[in-house]
């Protein structure tokens, strides 16, 4: 039998602290993204007395999405779909230009793991101390440090799940309800699930999520090409690696700084790897060492693989912008922009009064006893404002066709409460001798008008006569 085990325990990764411009960038991005995540639900937005005053609110119960001044109704879900498509195209664009920048800087898994590692370092010390602690026996000190760390992680995890639920209902009300245990069970359940996943993924699964659970490393390979800017090791400059006194000629002194700081536990000097999330911490670590030994920075650097032959030969490499601006990225940009412009246009032409007319086709027309012909329409009126409105319904061809509202006793007005859709059945009648009564199809347009606000909407449809 084989000498090695079929199953291996996880190799823990103990990333060392690192300083540098990419590390600073990551700190800033962490602060901004976490700030957005935790604070957004608390921004207030006055929409009037009948609508919620939360700037960003996904109101599942009333089926409304509020995003600052934009209110999205279920039938306008294409806005959300469009934004998701833009997010996808944006990811393609960034991946083809800069590799896995999403993974390295803004992916929630990366951001929270970074935060958890920060906590770990505060409590247990830097890499060497953590390695010692890991291998040490379970004494009181180890228990104390581990428990402290887990408690802080749990607190962050609870806050993570806790912030999520505020996007779905009024935040201050929910916070109060959560406090006195009267919130909806779904809120507690969501917090519990997100707490568990954050604690587990940020604390224990970390790089395992990126390697095993996330499909993105596999997909990204299709979006990168030799012009993509990725984190790479200039082996033509670094090799033969080793200490100076060993008579090695390369710049790499094999100090392992790049390996020790890597949150994925890989050695970038082995070349491009699926595990690499291009967070660039190895660049910071190597640049620091190069500075200390008096060599130029950039032994490990963001570079395009297509530059390798030129760099090896010592000739100038292609400028970065030429790598970034190439047909592939321009195409992604064009697609991204055109969808964005389309969405903006749709947003711009939207009104807060809408009318949808569905002719009842079962039957297409009803003959009345005096020979008149009647058509039935179901009219959906949407009042998207925060105030009740009185709407007047009419037709373009009032003199030929008569309009009656079901259950309104001849009245053509109806009141729609704030932020509401109403369904109104409407009868349109053609007098016996009018053309519309005998023509197969007559065009007609419904108008709805708010006389107070002078806002109108219309929809064209058809009238079916006796065939």
């Amino acid at each position, binding site marked *: 039998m084989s000498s*090695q085990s*079929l199953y291996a325990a996880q190799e823990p990764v103990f990333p060392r602290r690192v300083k540098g411009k990419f590390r600073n960038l990551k700190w800033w991005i962490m602060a901004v993204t976490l700030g957005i995540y935790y604070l957004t639900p608390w921004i207030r937005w006055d929409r009037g007395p009948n609508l919620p005053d939360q700037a960003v609110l996904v109101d599942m119960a009333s089926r409304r999405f509020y995003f600052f001044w934009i209110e999205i109704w279920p039938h306008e879900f294409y806005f959300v779909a469009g934004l998701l498509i833009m997010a996808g195209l944006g990811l393609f664009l960034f991946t083809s230009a800069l590799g896995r920048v999403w993974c390295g800087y803004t992916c929630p898994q990366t951001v929270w793991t970074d935060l958890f590692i920060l906590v770990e370092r505060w409590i247990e010390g830097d890499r060497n101390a953590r390695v010692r602690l890991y291998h040490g026996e379970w004494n009181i000190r180890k228990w104390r440090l581990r428990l402290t760390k887990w408690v802080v992680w749990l607190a962050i995890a609870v806050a993570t799940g806790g912030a999520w639920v505020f996007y779905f209902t009024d935040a201050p009300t929910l916070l109060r309800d959560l406090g006195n245990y009267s919130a909806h069970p779904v809120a507690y359940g969501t917090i519990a699930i997100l707490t568990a996943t954050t604690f587990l993924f940020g604390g224990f699964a970390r790089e395992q999520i990126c390697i095993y659970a996330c499909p993105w490393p596999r997909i990204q390979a299709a979006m990168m090409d030799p012009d993509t800017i990725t984190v790479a090791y200039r082996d033509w400059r670094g090799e033969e690696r080793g200490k100076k006194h060993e008579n090695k000629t390369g710049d790499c002194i094999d100090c392992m700084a790049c390996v020790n700081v890597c949150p994925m536990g890989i050695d970038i000097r082995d070349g491009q790897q699926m595990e690499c999330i291009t967070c660039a911490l190895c660049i910071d670590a190597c640049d620091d060492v190069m500075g200390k030994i008096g060599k130029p920075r950039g032994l490990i650097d963001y570079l395009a693989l297509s530059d390798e032959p030129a760099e090896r030969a010592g000739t100038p490499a292609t400028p970065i912008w030429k790598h970034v601006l190439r047909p592939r990225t321009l195409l992604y940009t064009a697609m991204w922009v055109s969808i964005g412009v389309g969405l903006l246009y749709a947003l711009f032409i939207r009104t807060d009064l809408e009318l949808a007319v569905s002719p009842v086709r079962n*039957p297409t027309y009803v003959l009345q006893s005096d020979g008149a012909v009647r058509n039935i329409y179901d009219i959906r009126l949407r009042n998207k404002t925060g105030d009740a409105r009185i709407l007047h319904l009419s037709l373009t061809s009032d003199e030929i066709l008569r309009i009656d509202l079901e259950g309104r006793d001849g009245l053509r007005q109806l009141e729609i409460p704030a932020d509401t859709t109403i369904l109104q059945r409407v009868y349109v009648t053609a007098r016996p001798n009018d053309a519309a009564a005998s023509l197969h199809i007559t065009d007609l347009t419904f108008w709805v008008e708010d006389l107070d606000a002078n806002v109108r909407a219309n929809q064209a449809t058809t009238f079916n006569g006796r065939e």
Partner: protein
Amino acid sequence: MSDLKVDEETGVETTGHVWDGIEELNNPLPRWWLWTLYACIVWAIAYSIAYPAWPMLSGATSGVLGYSSRGEVAEDIAAHEAKNQGLVVEFAAVELAALDPASDLNRYAVARGGSVFRAQCSQCHGSGAAGGVGYPNLLDNDWLWGGDMDNITHSIRHGIRNDTDDDARYSEMPAFSEILETEEIDAIVEYVTSLSMPEFDAGMAEMGTVLFQDNCASCHGEKATGDRDLGAPNLADAIWLYGGDREALKYTVENARFGVMPAWGQRLTDADVRAVSVYVHSLGGGE
């Protein structure tokens, strides 16, 4: 195992599989992955004990939790009925003719009546209530027995021309083929045609007028406008239950018609009868 190959580069055994010169390393699987697999197996066993899972010759194991999706639906229905309980009580007490069309109660009644209609009435009157030959169109403003709420409810509850209910509406036209000559019937048909059609034979219609007054006016009225108390249709309007062309009219006069509707009061709950009345009244022809 005969010959273990070890990859020189990594020092790891290979599985012996080679594709295009690429060899597969036999790297160990992560231990946590193994434990996750074990946990899933335990979960699957527990699940198949707790819930219906194993197919048997007839049906399946029921599971110790006693769960069934049918039971879940029954719970949902019970929950909705409990939610509507207030409306049900209110609806039982309300005077239908006085029901406010804009009220929640009316919406409830129309929705409930609509579903009853589609289940019980659409077979004859059509899913859109437009009826057909011999089955009245409920969307127009022509009513044999009256189109106000009370008349509609009465027709639905007791039915038309059935022997099962003493209060059923009943009208019967004689088959005139046994009473009149064919020529006389043709004259009556021509007279009836003249009431609503522009083209007719004036001489025949003239003769039909007299015959109509003698034979038909007692039920259909002197001006042929019908009589709702007798269920006699208006013959002067544009609506025909069995067709308004000469051929159909002649058949009707000769043989008479005898449409039957069940007494729904015997089959539906009182609330369902009332709800379907509200629904029919709301279709646009209600008076």
